[in-house]
């Protein structure tokens, strides 16, 4: 019942906020409660056991075809639940107690709905609810960008709505095709996996369905060239929404690829032409968007682009089709979720104080705001993949995995792609350190923007992200031990 509570608590809190409960307090209480429950789930979870744990069926929608609201976690989904709990805690801490326009109740209720949707998507063991919960999280996301965003928020909201709406539809088509081709009798993901193994589809069918899913999920993940919605949306989004979407919701697509597309379509995901397309696309994420990120002069747009770029590494881990690379991809999903949420949080602190994030308006900020400087420095170091922070461990495994599998195919294309992707590590350092240099180091510009240092709450919010990033940087096995059995079971 722990897992059901993870969905129900934010839902109830949203209703309570809408009904008049004190908004910030209620959402904070819900986030804390969810974090505690997640820890309880982690402790109840038995590492190394295959299959869903803490499983429960809450409600049967249809007996045949088998459609029910049921929850359960394996190591992979548990990691995503932990990510959601941490980011939503940070987002709740970062949510304001007053808003300049619109209703504070709506604001907090929306953040809670996003959390509930994300939790639901990761704990659902039923394909239908896996999809539906994600949709539930998207609607308040669009709403909040449109209502509470900054800058050209209407255009941004419109763009992300169309883009992700279309992505969801393509995804839906792919999932429907998958469902029908696997017998059309059940939405239960475990049973679907068995069906995929006992009565495998033809390789050609698999390839086409996989491609559909790849495009559908890909749009949600901002796979090149379907990325252009992301930077602007994040730049305009209110801080908690940018944190939750870039940190958690974007990982839904990757989770879907690992949990649904790869295991159910083993031949399709490894067919040469699909793999080649994916490699081109992910190199687009890393090299093309890497260069675009270097060209940015505003922090929020730079962060948005960098988050698009980093998806490339996770895709590389997936494309490696090797357990080392897949494990690295999951570690990187988790680490990136935390580091980008932290960066968007700090970006929000800077933007709300200075009214701008343009590099030219800042300089030497570490002097007046040392805590902010330290936290931003740690987040930047995490994001550019420095050892000691979790992102590095993930990237390293991705590179090992992708480089390894080359030998099997006898082609040098995957190692070559790995080497090209490695150049991205240099590009990340270029834009990351340039941003830090412009904002926090050097002399204040001619027209300096002032930013106060992090408050105690602000410091606490940052620590929600920094502590796990450091912990997993030093002890990545903590997470790998959870993930590896689950991935091994899914990907044989």
């Amino acid at each position: 019942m722990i897992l059901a509570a993870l969905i129900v608590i934010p839902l109830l809190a949203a209703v309570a906020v809408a009904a008049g409960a004190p908004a910030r307090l209620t959402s904070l209480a819900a986030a804390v409660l969810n974090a505690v429950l997640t820890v309880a789930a982690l402790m109840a979870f038995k590492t190394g056991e295959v299959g869903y744990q803490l499983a429960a069926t809450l409600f049967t929608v249809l007996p045949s075809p088998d459609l029910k609201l049921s929850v359960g976690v394996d190591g992979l989904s548990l990691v995503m639940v932990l990510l959601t709990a941490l980011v939503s805690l940070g987002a709740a801490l970062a949510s304001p107690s007053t808003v300049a326009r619109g209703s504070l109740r709506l604001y907090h209720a929306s953040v809670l709905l996003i959390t509930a949707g994300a939790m639901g998507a990761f704990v659902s063991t039923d394909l239908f609810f896996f999809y539906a919960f994600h949709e539930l999280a998207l609607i308040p996301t669009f709403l909040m960008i449109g209502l509470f965003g900054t800058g050209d928020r209407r255009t941004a909201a419109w763009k992300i709505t169309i883009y992700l709406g279309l992505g969801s539809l393509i995804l839906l088509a792919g999932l429907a095709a998958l469902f029908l081709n696997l017998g059309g009798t059940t939405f239960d993901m475990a049973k679907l996996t068995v069906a995929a193994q006992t009565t495998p589809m033809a390789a050609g069918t698999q390839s086409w369905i996989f491609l559909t899913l790849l495009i559908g999920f890909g749009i949600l993940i901002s796979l090149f060239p379907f990325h252009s919605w992301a930077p602007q949306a994040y730049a305009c989004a209110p801080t908690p929404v940018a944190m939750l979407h870039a940190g958690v919701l974007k990982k839904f697509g990757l989770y879907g690829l690992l949990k649904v597309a790869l295991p159910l379509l083993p031949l399709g995901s490894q067919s040469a032409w699909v793999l080649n397309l994916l490699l081109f696309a992910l190199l687009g994420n890393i090299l093309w968007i890497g260069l675009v990120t270097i060209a940015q002069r505003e922090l929020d747009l730079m962060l948005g682009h960098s988050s698009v770029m980093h998806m490339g590494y996770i895709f590389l881990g997936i494309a490696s089709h090797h357990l080392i690379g897949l494990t690295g991809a999951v570690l990187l999903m988790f680490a990136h979720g935390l580091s980008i949420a932290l960066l968007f949080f700090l970006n929000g602190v800077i933007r709300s104080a200075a009214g701008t994030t343009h590099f030219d308006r800042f300089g030497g900020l570490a002097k007046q705001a040392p805590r902010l400087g330290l936290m931003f420095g740690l987040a930047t170091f995490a994001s550019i993949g420095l050892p000691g922070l979790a992102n590095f461990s993930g990237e390293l495994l991705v590179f090992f995995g992708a480089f390894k599998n080359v030998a099997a195919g006898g082609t040098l294309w995957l190692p070559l792609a790995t080497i090209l992707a490695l150049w991205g590590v240099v590009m990340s350092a270029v834009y990351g350190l340039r941003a830090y240099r412009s904002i926090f180091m050097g002399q204040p510009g001619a027209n300096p923007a002032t930013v106060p240092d992090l408050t105690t709450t602000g410091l606490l919010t940052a620590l929600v992200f920094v502590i796990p990033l450091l912990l997993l940087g030093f002890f990545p096995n903590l997470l790998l031990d959870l993930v590896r059995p689950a991935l091994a079971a899914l990907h044989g």
Partner: protein
Amino acid sequence: MTALLPATILFLPLLAAAKILLLPKPMKGLAPAVSVGSVVLTLILSLVLWAKTGSDSTTVTLGSWINLGDMLQLNIGFKINALATGMMLVVTFIGTLVHLFSLAYMKDDDGKARYFAGLSLFMFSMTGIVLADNLAMMFIFWELVGVSSYLLIGHWFEKNSAAEAAKKAFLTNRIGDFGFMIGILMLWKATGSVTFDGIESAVRGMTVDPGWLTAAILCIFCGAVGKSAQLPLHVWLPDAMEGPTPVSALIHAATMVAAGVYMMIRVSFLLALPDAATAAHVIAWTGGLTALFAALCATQQNDIKKILAYSTLSQLGYMVMAVGLLAKEAAFFHLFTHAFFKALLFLGSGAIIYACHHEQDIWKMGGLARKLPRTTLTFLIGTAALIAVPFVTSGWYSKETILHAAHAHGGLLFYIGAGTAFLTAFYMTRLCVVAFLGTPRAHGADHAHEVPKIMLLPLVILAVPSVIGGFSFFAGRFLTLPPADHDHASHVPMIASLIALASGVSLGWLLYRGRDRDPVRISLLARKFFIDELYASLVSWGQDAVARIIHYVDILIIDGLGVRGLSGLAAVVGGGLRRLQGGNLQAYGFLFGCGVVVLLFIALSLH
């Protein structure tokens, strides 16, 4: 041996750094004590480690860092042998003296706590490199020394020049590390291992494709090119002099920059393979050319720290050349002696700069021999070792072994080495004559006073190994000396060194004695062959211009066409609803509704 002792040596400085970071504000004054305490302890423990190890070689594992079963095991483990313990003594000995020197040098600095935390972080990272038993762990600490170097170069981060220098150092090293990582992956793929012992036994037992091996070695070498500032990635080191001078002494002269050489010595079993001859050749030439190039640049610099920085580049070039000539003992011997006399010279320059009220231009000094007699004496001892005054200085012995190796190898590299020796004698004579003799040429030098004792003490201590560090009774205890082959050794290298020394010193003396301005003006050398300018334009016209173009293409084509196409589609889909309130949300709600309905419809129709 258990992993306890090396693990303590490794993590003690990290604890010190963490402790300083977590000290509450009113107690930040304790930071120097914490940092100095940890470095003194690690020095003592390193001595114990060295005494216990002797000439044994052991590998101990502390624990698993990444455990993916039989697919991949990356451990935190230590390969402890004479090379590692000798290097640890160099690092902790000079580290201790630099910490002591910093107590005085950084006394009034606002960011003192941050500075000492950075030094401790550096000691942690450097220890990791030295003790690592595998390439992955070495890479981790390799990056971490880069971080501490970044933090310390940028210590005075409000200064634009310091901020730029820190960034440049990090980015240049990242380019080297890009190659290093590829090299690690290639070796792992070829041998299935990342540990030094595992790789060594694998390459002994089978043949790796020669092309693959050569590429792997050269990729690994890229890491050394970055860290040890060899051509063409040397540009960061002179700029790194923006950091506080004790940092220049410890990190950018004696230890971290030597890590590239150390790493290549750790993997020198690869270079000894018959198929690695080409790679070794490339490495030797990279070192030789760097030695010559940097010595040429040093002859026309005016900033005392810049002269010493180019001198460091040049000496590192000697070491790299020795590695490429398969004379790893000679390389480490020179690394060992150079660490002492170059740390001495840098700390000496720090004392001079401190005494001259932060003046770094040698042309604004003059007559310092009378004002700062003790500092001058120690500086001259360091200079004597650097220019290899025969028989009585450490530098003479170690440089001789490298020149012997180059001579035995034959070819042009020997002449490059001898020419560099001549240039070294010349530019150091220039520095000393201009700074110490004559009369003060500026206010700062005129009012210079001898530095406090706590700054003088490390200079005096360092002067001792700068003299005796090359004698076999001393050096032989800490490292494996190159095999002496007196019977067959040619006298050519020794004669060449003596000629180089005598002519270099004489030329410097004749040209610069009694001068108030530089009589030689060679802008190609003063501007360092315009390589910085070349790189700056490559970055702004290459990377940045391309980035801007791609940025616009991304907006115009991908975003423009993509979104325009999509909005057309959405206009059709959501057109009716849009009219209600011009709302995108309704359109989305419609799409979402469609999705759920379609899926339910499929499910129900099967029911």
